[in-house]
């Protein structure tokens, strides 16, 4: 009996050792990797596209093309990460001194990562020449230098059903004539009065862990006349995030909750809820359209419109995923030559199409039927080119964004607007001072 026990223990240990051998041989392959690094000028590209087949396979194709092109300055290898934890992965790698050559960057993070030595400015002349041809919102700049470039941009819009608007006597807003604030309020009041929905308007309030609040609600703030930070020198939010316009904005947001137009903690999947007719009006990203086209049986009835004009013009969110180079990259020439290679119209078109985003050049737009004049997605190109306002180009942005979403969330749940915004401004200004103004020496 005891012998058996002993034998089984030995077997267990042997099994573990064998398994560990298996895994380390096939998995870690550290030695093999080191060797490859020594051999060629291999550079690694980190993408945020793990699990997103269309985008990842496009990147893979571009990289394969580059690696077999005669102009290559090195070999590119892809490492893909899931999007929702991508930033934490990069920041950890930076802490551990383990950054690759090329990294995907969410555009608004560019200044922060540039300041913190995660990104180096792009200097290659030919590359910079090509970036001049991209739409403005597909570039990440800071301190008058270009750090990152993107293949596409996303944007925000209102979604509604034409039939619903018609029944309730609400005008379909157009790019040239967005709703005014009065029209927006009127539309919401009519929808609420119709009784079709518990909350007629869905603006993604449950999405309070991500960039969504700053990406989507700061444009409303800006349309009211406020902003996240004073863009003159990016040293304070005083007067812009807590000025009268900002307070008016915050009170309007709270009134949406008080009138029962929105739930301050909305649905977990706003696009599907809209498809399932759980809301009548949706404020969402361009990616909503993919869900609509996939699931809605009445997708022809669904229309995208620009956000209302609250006094200072309609404003749309901008800035999406871009790619940049790290200062620790040991083959910067290859890194920049790859970026330039990947910015061909045909690649831009494929990258944009993979996620149904706005292609970064007109040439690429003409390669995708949906974005050509008259195409079903062209409305987003128009909204973006006419109304986009980029998030402030300061390393403080990351902090500002976290403060903004907490503050707006609290105000929607009944906190006093003025004191809440004052508190946010104090925190933001304290953070900027603590970082010596985020000025790079």
């Amino acid at each position, binding site marked *: 009996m*005891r*012998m058996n026990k*002993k034998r089984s223990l030995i077997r267990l240990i042997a099994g573990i050792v064998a398994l560990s051998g298996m895994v380390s041989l096939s998995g870690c392959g550290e030695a093999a990797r080191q060797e490859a690094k020594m051999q060629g000028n291999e550079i690694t590209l980190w993408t945020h596209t793990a699990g997103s087949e269309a985008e990842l396979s496009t990147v893979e194709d571009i990289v394969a093309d580059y690696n077999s092109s005669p102009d290559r300055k090195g070999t590119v290898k892809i490492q893909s990460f899931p999007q929702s934890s991508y930033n*934490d992965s990069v*920041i950890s790698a*930076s*802490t551990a001194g383990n950054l690759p050559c090329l990294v995907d960057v969410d555009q608004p993070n560019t200044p922060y*990562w540039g*300041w*913190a*030595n*995660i990104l180096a400015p792009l200097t290659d002349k030919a590359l910079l020449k090509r970036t001049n041809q991209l739409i403005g919102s597909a570039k990440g700049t800071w301190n008058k230098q270009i750090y990152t470039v993107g293949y596409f941009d996303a944007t925000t819009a209102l979604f509604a059903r034409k039939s619903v608007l018609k029944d309730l006597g609400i005008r379909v807003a157009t790019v040239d004539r967005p709703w005014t604030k009065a029209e927006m309020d009127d539309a919401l009041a009519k929808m609420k009065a119709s009784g079709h929905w*518990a909350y007629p308007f869905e603006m993604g309030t449950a999405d*309070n*862990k991500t960039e969504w609040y700053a990406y989507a609600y700061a444009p409303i703030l800006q349309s009211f006349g406020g902003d996240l930070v004073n863009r003159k020198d990016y040293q304070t939010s005083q007067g812009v995030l807590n000025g009268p316009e900002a307070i008016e904005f915050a009170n309007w947001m709270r009134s949406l909750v008080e009138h029962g137009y929105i*739930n*301050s*903690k909305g649905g*977990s999947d706003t696009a599907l809820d809209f498809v399932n007719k759980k809301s009548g009006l949706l404020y969402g990203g361009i990616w909503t359209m993919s869900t609509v086209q996939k699931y809605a049986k009445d997708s022809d009835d669904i229309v995208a419109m620009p956000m209302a004009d609250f006094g200072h013009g309609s404003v749309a969110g901008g800035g999406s995923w871009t790619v940049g180079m790290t200062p620790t990259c040991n083959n910067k020439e290859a890194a920049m030559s790859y970026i330039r290679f990947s910015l061909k119209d045909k690649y831009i078109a494929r990258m944009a199409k993979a996620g149904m985003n706005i292609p970064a050049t007109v040439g690429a737009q003409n390669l995708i039927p949906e974005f050509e004049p008259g195409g079903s997605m062209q409305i987003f190109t128009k909204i973006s080119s006419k109304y986009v306002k980029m998030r402030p180009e300061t390393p403080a942005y*990351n*902090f500002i964004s*976290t403060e903004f979403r*907490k503050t707006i*969330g*609290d105000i929607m*749940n*009944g*906190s006093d607007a003025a004191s809440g915004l004052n508190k946010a401004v104090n925190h933001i200004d*304290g*953070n900027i001072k*603590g*970082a*010596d103004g985020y000025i*790079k*020496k």
Partner: protein
Amino acid sequence: MSSSIQTTIIRQPADGDTALTPNNKSAEVIHENRAGWLMLAPACILLVLFIGIPVALAFVLSFTNARTISPNPTRFIGLNNFTRLFSDPTFWRALLNVAIFAVVVVPVQAGLGLFLAVLINKKVRSSVFFRTVYFLPVVTSMVVVSLLWMFIYQNDGMLNQVLEKLTFHHWTAVDWLNNPQTALGAIIVMSIWQAVGQHMLIWLSGLQTISAELYEAAELDGCDAWHQFTNVTWPGLRSTRNMILITITIAALSLFTQINVMTQGGPRDSTTTVVFEAVRSGFQQQEMGYASAITLVFFLIIMAITAVQRRITHSN
């Protein structure tokens, strides 16, 4: 094979043969001390290396303006982080929240866990099945659990629907997770539901240490189930009880995951917790120094509470 090992050990001249002489008494103590340290060493070294030192580092950082990523040199800023912390109403709210959470969760979760453990400690075949089912919330992925509970708690969610039916439509729907008055309560209920299986398991392991003979004797004495519990089970669980009290208290005060997934501390700080604030500062806002200050204060508070608990349980 086993007997040969035994004989070799017995034949070793080490302890057995010479232990009787007084001079060797101290040798034995030294030997015991050495054996003890050898057995302790792996755990201690690992704990020092991978918790002790990093935590000490964090505590040092709490006196600096350190950031997770920054080109600026880190410098000492004295007690600035602490004065900022103590003047932040959100921190005091977080402390209050975890205090309320712990006061409710510790007794209820421990009690319910014990109830379930006793319920399924019966040696009948179905116990295997029920034990597994009761443990399911512990093993189910937090993504799934939180999605489901958010829908249960919604305005038009299942909880409100059930309450409406039970009260014959006299119930007005409450948005449980999104109402500052009810949000913490909703988190408490959900947390107890999710973790009670874990404590059931610990109680269950404690129950195995109570001799079946004691129960048989009690049964012969004509004790009913309740008296068996008070006379046999409860006294027999003393050491398990002490441990559960301390570990549940620590776990309750460290409340984080549910908050991170479901409420982000809202609405209006009504569900924020100390650990959530530390992680928010450290990870989301990358203010390492400030986050470390929160951690240090939190650590000291838990230390104090545990010390008091241990004193009370030991004096019993």
